[in-house]
């Protein structure tokens, strides 16, 4: 895999000027953000659906401490270990000094205010499908959270993945804003698709990945090995998941499976977030999962 990636980098370098241009970070068109006013109250729902705290709070944080987005959690992968940064509104350690445009480009395009690519461990490939208004609301909400002075730590990523520009090549190949499930039967399932594909980024863990870490869209939500190395992440398509719509919605509210086992590991945190959404949102996610094409 490393060799393949080195080859991709070499191709980009060989491409010279063209490659350099093609891999340049692409920001959102300014018109996409013009005139948007964020509403912090609405932003909380986006924050919960997007699961921001599950990666950006301090490891082991409970209760109110989950709203302190000081970063530091470690995410191992085939490409190195990524460390979640501080995204609290602290002006130096966090993102308090950013503009809304900085934030929107980070979240929806994976581009930093300095014009650098973020690694796709940050699921901007999912958030790219979000409504800009929702991102404006999220930004307004994040600014209400407690600032924290903990400095962000560097990712532990070796060569060649340490060349940020190479992420531009990756984006060229894999960054897309169309839906993974093109057709859904009802408005409810459509809302569920928005929650699951754009905000909830379920596919990041539940969809298997290819050699370059890209999601294998033909096996969308068909389950994958756990990147922590322990166990597997289950298949959510109707090929394997036989729970009823109310079973799924109930699970996302209480964490109980139909057999009254409970969500474990990272999913327990997802349930912690989703349980705070209105009932109709969980029902919508369940309706969407019922409409996902079966895959093994």
């Amino acid at each position, binding site marked *: 895999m490393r060799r393949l990636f080195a080859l991709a980098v070499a191709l980009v370098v060989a491409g010279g000027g063209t490659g350099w241009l093609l891999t340049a970070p692409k920001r959102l068109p300014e018109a996409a953000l013009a005139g948007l006013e964020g509403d912090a109250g609405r932003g909380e729902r986006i924050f919960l659906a997007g699961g921001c705290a599950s990666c950006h709070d301090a490891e082991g944080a409970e209760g109110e401490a989950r709203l302190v987005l000081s970063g530091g959690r470690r995410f191992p992968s085939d490409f190195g270990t990524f460390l979640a940064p501080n995204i609290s509104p602290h002006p130096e350690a966090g993102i308090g000094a950013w503009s809304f445009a900085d934030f929107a480009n980070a979240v929806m395009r994976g581009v930093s205010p300095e014009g650098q690519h973020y690694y796709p461990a940050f699921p901007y490939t999912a958030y790219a499908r979000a409504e800009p208004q929702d991102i404006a609301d999220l930004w307004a909400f994040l600014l209400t959270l407690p600032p924290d002075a903990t400095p962000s730590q560097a990712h532990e990523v070796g060569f060649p993945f340490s060349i940020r520009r190479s992420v531009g090549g990756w984006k060229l190949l894999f960054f897309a804003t169309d839906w993974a499930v093109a057709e859904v039967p009802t408005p409810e399932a459509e809302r569920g698709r928005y929650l699951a594909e754009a905000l909830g980024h379920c596919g990041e863990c539940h969809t298997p990945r290819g050699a370059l870490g890209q999601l294998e869209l033909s096996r969308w939500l068909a389950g994958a090995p756990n990147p922590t190395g322990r166990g*597997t992440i289950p298949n959510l398509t109707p090929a394997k998941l036989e729970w009823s719509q109310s079973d799924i919605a109930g699970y996302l509210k209480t*964490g*109980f499976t139909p057999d*009254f*086992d409970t*969500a474990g590991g990272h999913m*327990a*945190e997802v349930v912690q977030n989703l349980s705070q959404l209105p009932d109709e949102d969980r029902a919508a996610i369940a309706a969407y999962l019922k409409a996902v094409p079966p895959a093994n």
Partner: protein
Amino acid sequence: MKPLIRNALAFAAMASVMAGGALAQSAVEGAIKARKAHMQLQAFNLGPLGAMAKGEMPYDAAQASAAAGNLAALVSMNMGRYFPEGSAQGQAEGTRALPAIWENGEDVMAKVAALNEAVTALNATAGTDLASLQGAMGAVGEACGACHKAYRAPE
């Protein structure tokens, strides 16, 4: 010491170690079986409560009270003997219990206390009406999940 006696003593010592080992092993197996059975009983009593909360079964105050009462009795039981040394995943077969359980006794007890609190609240309101039952179920799920998240290996 005559060789025969020495050998006999050595044999006796070895046999007693082996018997001790076998005994310890069956005690561990028994504890794993018991704690799984306990979880099963809890799940069984959550069954009607969850089905009512999800609207899959009509609300029945008497049934809800009975199940919540059983659950309250189950979570109040002392589980100390369920977790003997040597019964963690990696030390014994057929368990996903993480070794961290034995390292963080205080936190485990805090989580058990939180479960007791959530089930006590459920038991107090499950027989009142459906809304109260639904309201109390979330905290129970969270308390169960908190322990599973920290102390149980994924499948």
